[in-house]
């Protein structure tokens, strides 16, 4: 029987509680107990960025974050980008640029772009490339992804 620990945190703007398995990752908790499948498991060791979420305003690999460390934090997953009036401007930019092939890396790409724009709403191509270094697309559609990140920035600024 594995050890669990009770935690409370803010998930996509709503307070939530969970019995977190001490040996499990934030990714496992989000995909499991909370059934939020947008955050993806790919490499499981922080190399690919498919599991990127935003915690207390900073992007991180949820596969390397113990679930118990979510305690008291504000967590944003790709599901939290949904708005009454449609999708998030970053999501729209990915659609507009056709920056999606198989789509598996897309939630991570979008969350990392969201984070980069929160720090700097006016990304240059180089800043977008550097900022997305930790996100891997195996379809190799980087050109359109970078264009989307830059385009989303302009959109956010307008």
């Amino acid at each position: 029987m594995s050890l669990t620990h009770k935690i409370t945190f803010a998930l996509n703007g709503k307070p939530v509680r969970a019995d977190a398995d001490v040996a499990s990752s934030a990714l496992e908790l989000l995909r499991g107990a909370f059934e939020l499948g947008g955050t993806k498991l790919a490499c499981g060791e922080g190399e690919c960025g498919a599991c990127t979420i935003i915690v207390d305003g900073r992007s991180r690999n949820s596969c390397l974050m113990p679930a118990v460390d979510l305690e008291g934090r504000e967590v944003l997953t790709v599901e939290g980008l949904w708005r009454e009036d449609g999708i998030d401007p970053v999501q729209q930019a990915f659609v507009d640029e056709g920056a999606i092939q198989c789509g598996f890396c897309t939630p991570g790409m979008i969350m990392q772009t969201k984070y980069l724009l929160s720090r700097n709403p006016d990304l240059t191509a180089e800043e977008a490339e550097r900022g997305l270094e930790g996100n891997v697309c195996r379809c190799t559609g980087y050109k359109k992804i970078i264009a989307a990140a830059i385009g989303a920035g302009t959109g956010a600024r307008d």
Partner: protein
Amino acid sequence: MLPQNKCPPEIEDYVSAQSLAEAVAAMADGQGSALAGGSDLWAQKDSGNGRMRKRLVNINRVPDLRGVSEAGGVIRLGALTTMTELLESTLLRDKVPVLAKTADRFASSQIRNVATIGGNIANASPAGDAVLPLIGLDAQVELVSKRGKRSLPLDSFFRGPGKTVMEADELIAAVEFATPPKGFHGVFCKSGPRPALEISVVAMCLTGILKGGKLTGPRLVFGAVGPTPMRCVKTEALIDGKALDDALIAEALAIMATEIAPIDDFRASKWYRTQMAQTFLEAELNACR
């Protein structure tokens, strides 16, 4: 040490420390593993390398382990200082830009947001990048335990890959170093297969006081060319305060190659590592002229 294919020990206890006293108490029996950013600890968790102890001690909510500050000519980085904070701190950008330069080459944005100075030191990877400029700054590591507090030079902290002089009941509280004086020069170079998330094949940090083409009180530190971060004290003594002409640089490259201890492994050959170390040193000594 567990066999490579064996499951890691189960976590039997979890403590979320709210103060330094609580953290130290939870480590006191030597059965605790400190959790900070998790980017090393969690990545190694299932590898069966035996690093995880039975109690997980979350130190992320300990205020005393945070913060970048300067007092009385000494800069203190709390153990929980992240690579992103090294990049964003105006104090460090102004006074110790070599730390920001190093953090800029560290892993990825997501990892930089969580990876801590204390973790990079405690993990004791021979390829730990953040350790190099800190050795170049003559940093001291402050360790705390229920038995008290002690400080020792970071330079004498490492014993081998993953091995340090830290006892099982100790926590890294902070690193401290003297605010670099006017004329301080610090560079960081790193080589690996790709720009992001690379584990250094060779990394180098060179520091000193640069004046009139001479480097005084130099510190030359290499990563990934030996079992621990390697300081080249003979090379440092050779170039200390001398005009960096072609002959001296050639001699420095030759002596440095005898001080490092690179190995052949799947990342690079010994030959390649030596060539890269010499290439970095030659370029940076020439840049000082």
